């Protein structure tokens, strides 16, 4: 679980990034507190995934700084504290023969180093499998699972790594409504257990129902604050419709 002395899990300060001449993220600052459920929304091509990648160290920003768990991202080494479910992770394993359990065991790799997984690692993997309720699927090939089941497996991988932060990039694309509800129910449970969640989701209704705070971006940050203030603000119309201007930034 999170270090109680560090309340900010992610701190992004004046971050900008451009693909060539095209600005993707412009001067964004925001903080994700421990235990928060942050919904990251914005129209297509608004820089949501780029911002998430900057937060996780997958992209180095052109300017600005990022801290993870109180450490500058360049010095951060406790990667096992972050569980990441990327957009690609659903399709990447399409031809690779790998079981659900083997995928979940990857969560223990950072802990085991170059050693074989020990009994404790296997017990933690079992617990993660039980938590997301896929015990009956663990010996099947991951690409034989439905989208919703596969996402549960990736969550289990994050749980096995004992992650404090779960970052998910549109995890329910192509998942049926019933499985999606069950999936978000699981996220709610994990969040109430203290896991910090950052979720990119195209369905704004889902985000406003689930997230405690919302960051709305379209290259610039249009809103960062609690869900109620977002619903009452004009940030949505501004970010999705008009050209940008105001930054609502509430802490």
């Amino acid at each position, binding site marked *: 679980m999170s270090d109680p002395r560090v309340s900010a899990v992610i701190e992004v300060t004046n971050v900008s990034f451009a693909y060539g001449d095209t600005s993707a993220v412009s001067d964004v600052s925001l903080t994700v507190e421990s235990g928060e459920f942050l919904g990251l929304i914005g129209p297509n091509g608004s820089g949501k995934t780029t911002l998430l990648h900057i937060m996780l160290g997958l992209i180095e920003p052109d300017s600005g700084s990022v801290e993870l768990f109180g450490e500058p991202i360049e010095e951060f080494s406790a990667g096992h504290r972050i569980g990441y479910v990327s957009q690609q992770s659903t399709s990447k394993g399409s031809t*690779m*023969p790998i079981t659900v359990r083997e995928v979940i065991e990857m969560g223990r790799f950072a802990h085991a180093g*170059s050693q074989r997984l020990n009994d404790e690692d296997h017990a933690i993997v079992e617990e993660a499998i039980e938590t997301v309720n896929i015990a009956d699927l663990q010996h099947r090939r991951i690409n034989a699972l439905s989208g919703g089941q596969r996402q549960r497996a990736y969550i289990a991988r994050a749980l096995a790594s004992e992650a404090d932060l779960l970052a998910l990039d549109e995890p329910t694309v192509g998942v049926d409504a019933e499985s999606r509800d069950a999936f978000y129910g699981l996220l709610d449970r994990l969040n109430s257990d203290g896991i910090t969640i950052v979720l990119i989701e195209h369905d704004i209704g889902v985000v406003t129902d689930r997230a405690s705070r919302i960051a709305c971006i379209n290259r610039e940050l249009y809103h960062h604050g609690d869900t109620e203030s977002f619903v009452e603000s004009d940030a949505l119309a501004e970010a999705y419709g008009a050209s940008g201007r105001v930054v609502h930034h509430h802490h």
Partner: protein
Amino acid sequence: MQNSTRRLQALRSAAIVSFGFVLILSAFLVSDTLLTYGLPNGGLVSAFVSVGQIIAEATGFTLLSFRFGWRMLAIGGLIGIVGPLIGMYIVHREMAMIGETLAHTAFAGVAIGLLVTGATGIETNYLLPALIVAILGAFLVEYLAARSSSYGDVPIAIMLSGSFALGTLVISYGGGLTGISIEGVLFGNVSVVPPSGGTIMLVLSAIVIGVVATQYKQLLFITFDEQAARVAQLNVSAYNSLLIVLTALVVVGAMQILGVILVAAMLVVPVAAASQIATSFREALYLAVLIGEASIMVGLVAAHQAGLPAGGTIVMLGVVCYIAAVVLSDRDLAAISIR
């Protein structure tokens, strides 16, 4: 679940037996190397040859009554392990063409080596310059790939044909300076593999097996989900470079039997066959090694008996295994859909 566990255990046992067999053959290679350099070898080479003579008397199969026959079998045994071992990662990283490219780069290395030998009179096994140039080529491929959006096939295709073109130019320039057969380099020539070829294969295999044994989990994580591996703070760029360099080692080692043209098949075909029918990564790994070993051992023996080229025979056997696996997996899918 019990079925899959039993299957995995059976494959594991078979792979261990196969590994043990190759270990015994490796003991021959060690002894062969010692003998070549005039060091005491404990008589292992003559013991192997004696066993081969007994087999020849009993069955009429004469290959193993010669020192080169055992050397060929031992090198083949090592290729059957290290080829699929590295192939498991490169195939599932969608980098199957990298082996082919590095083989052609190694060909340029052979040509450059021949030119240097012709100019300076310093003679080495042709695999050594091939190894150096293939490793440099591996870094160049990695450099080009890192600057395109993915392991796109355009830089790989350019490297493949470019290095082969360089090789042909160098050979043309230095024509007549060398005693080695270019045809043998292109298509493999088992009957003239020198003892130093066995030594090089032994060292390369030890490096490849050692690295994969200690970095298995990290390579698997990166192969399956590179972004998540980056987030978990694995040094993905370093592992990518490592994987490509290991591929270069395997390609150069395997070139002497399979030749430049066919060497990549041993990285790709057994893995493709195993991946059709395996459920788990481990299962596919064991199965790929077994298919690789079976193709090589049966291929070498059959080629010797029938007077066929070894490389082509081995690869065709692998392809037959692949087609069989595709048919088998189709039947499995049909059975599932009927249920």
